[in-house]
């Protein structure tokens, strides 16, 4: 499927004259695809363990989703249906570009409906809809190392993971609580996966963290710049690190509801402006919410 553009027919024919369409080569070759898939398999076999992989140059800048993109490209085939969201929005510039790139180079189909998608690549959100076990969620990760903030030495980091020595992380949570009265971390909340490795749940907000726990679907985390892939396999424990007397809480603003669909139980973001207005972060979910409410009326 090709995307339609708002350009006029004359412009298009002119472009084709200047630059005739040639089949684009795949962005990653068989060798790269195999290497990334192996890294993915390792990541699934050792839940939460950060597997190094040979991160390639992508036609997007590192830090703009190159890790997630490589995972998607290594998995996607022509029969796949791809959904890409940026901040929960299918129409964000980056989401559109990535989706176009993926579909054009793999022959996959695009969609905004979560239920139709086989692969969902996301920055920042897990779709509000319940995902199924035949779907794979691919997250674009900026900083994969959960201990980065508490330790800089790479060898020491490796040792801490190897020995499950996470006391420094606990100290940072303690210090956060002492200084601020609450644990203030928003995205990338540290979680213990399968009772063994601590991961950064970046890029998703706290809101989505509980949805990883015992999820039916596979989640793959790809960090292009840091050259790491890690995974939360289906039906795996994901426990946010928190003190037994300090319950883990997700973001909420009392009384806030979506300006468009009136929803109160979705993840809301504030629209900058003179008066406080909130909208759903997941735009496609919000659209369907509105339609179903209108249908009821």
């Amino acid at each position, binding site marked *: 499927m090709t995307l339609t553009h708002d350009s006029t027919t004359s412009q298009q024919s002119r472009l084709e004259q200047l630059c005739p369409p040639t089949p684009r080569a795949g962005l990653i070759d068989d060798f790269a695809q195999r290497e990334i898939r192996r890294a993915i398999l390792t990541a699934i076999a050792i839940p939460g363990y950060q597997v190094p992989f040979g991160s390639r140059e992508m036609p997007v800048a590192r830090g703009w989703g190159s890790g997630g993109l490589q995972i998607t490209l290594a998995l996607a085939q022509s029969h796949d249906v791809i959904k890409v969201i940026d901040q929960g929005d299918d129409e964000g510039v980056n989401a559109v570009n990535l989706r176009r790139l993926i579909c054009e180079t793999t022959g996959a189909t695009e969609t905004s409906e979560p239920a139709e998608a086989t692969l969902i690549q996301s920055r920042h959100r897990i779709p509000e809809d319940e995902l199924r076990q035949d779907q794979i969620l691919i997250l674009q990760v900026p900083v994969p190392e959960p201990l980065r903030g508490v330790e800089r030495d790479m060898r020491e980091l490796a040792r801490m993971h190897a*020995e499950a020595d*996470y*006391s*420094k992380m*606990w*100290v940072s949570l303690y210090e956060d609580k002492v200084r601020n009265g609450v644990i203030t971390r928003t995205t990338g909340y540290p979680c213990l996966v399968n009772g063994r490795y601590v991961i950064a749940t970046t890029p998703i907000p706290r809101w989505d963290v509980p949805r990883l726990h015992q999820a039916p679907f596979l989640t793959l985390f790809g960090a292009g710049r840091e050259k790491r892939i890690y995974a939360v396999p289906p039906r795996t424990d994901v426990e946010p690190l928190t*003190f037994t007397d300090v319950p883990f809480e997700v973001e909420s603003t009392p009384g806030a509801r979506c300006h468009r669909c009136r929803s109160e139980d979705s993840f809301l973001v504030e629209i900058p402006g003179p008066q406080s207005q909130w909208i759903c972060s997941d735009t496609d979910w919000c659209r369907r919410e509105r339609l179903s409410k209108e249908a009821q009326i």
Partner: protein
Amino acid sequence: MTSHSPMERAPWVLKVENLGKVFGPMDSDVLAETGPEIGTSKSSRTGTVVAAWDVNFEVAAGEALGVIGESGSGKSTVMRAIAGDHEASHGAVWLRTRKGDVVNVAAIPDSARRALRVDELAVVYQDAAEGLDLGVTAGGNVADRLTAAGWRNFAEIRHRAAHLLGRTEVPLERMDDIVRQFSGGMRQRVQLAKALANNPPIVLFDEPTTGLDASVAAGVLDLIRDLLTELGIAAVVVSHDFSVIEMLTTRCIVMHHGRVVEEGLTDQLLEDPLHPYSQRLVAAART
């Protein structure tokens, strides 16, 4: 009649056996080419450094043993071999854990050694930066040991940290201050609180007051002595300073060029040192 001691002695919790640390090639002659008689710990033939050799001692609960010597005598080598900061090249460092297991610190993987450091054996270093995270609060430093031992209740962690810092005379209003802002004496007190966090049966003190002003050092020493008598821990105190050894220990060993030249009751070593080197050391300390 006196061949069997009729006295009940507490069993050792720390036993150092034939401990040695050698840098460089080792052969049968190296030992004869080094040591106090030769006046060096470095073999002139092979360049091998015998940093420590044939060190033996036991420490029971409630006992404090001193290790005294000049820098380069091997005393810090012994301390670090016990702590597991450096690996010994010879001999054994036996630890009786609280569960009653006996383990050789010198022969277990690094990870197991670090696990022992959480609740069996703590170290108070001369340089607080070695024992503390200076960028973390006083309470956070104590919390580090507690969380490592599995504490997960915030209020309990806070309560325990406050108790320990109170015990080591850190003003509670400074509990949430970053340790980097603390004076040298106060840092040592935080180190003590952190070391004692999980009630370790063994605590090693490596020059705990060296570098502090005399009056500050006196206060810290006094506190350490109190803690030793009160908590019944087995302690090893390493120092070049006789006044520290005198104040904290009942027994001690004297090291020189990597060997133990004398051992005895601390007051006996001070009043009646037998080895020429001990006599020199005492004479120097007394002037």
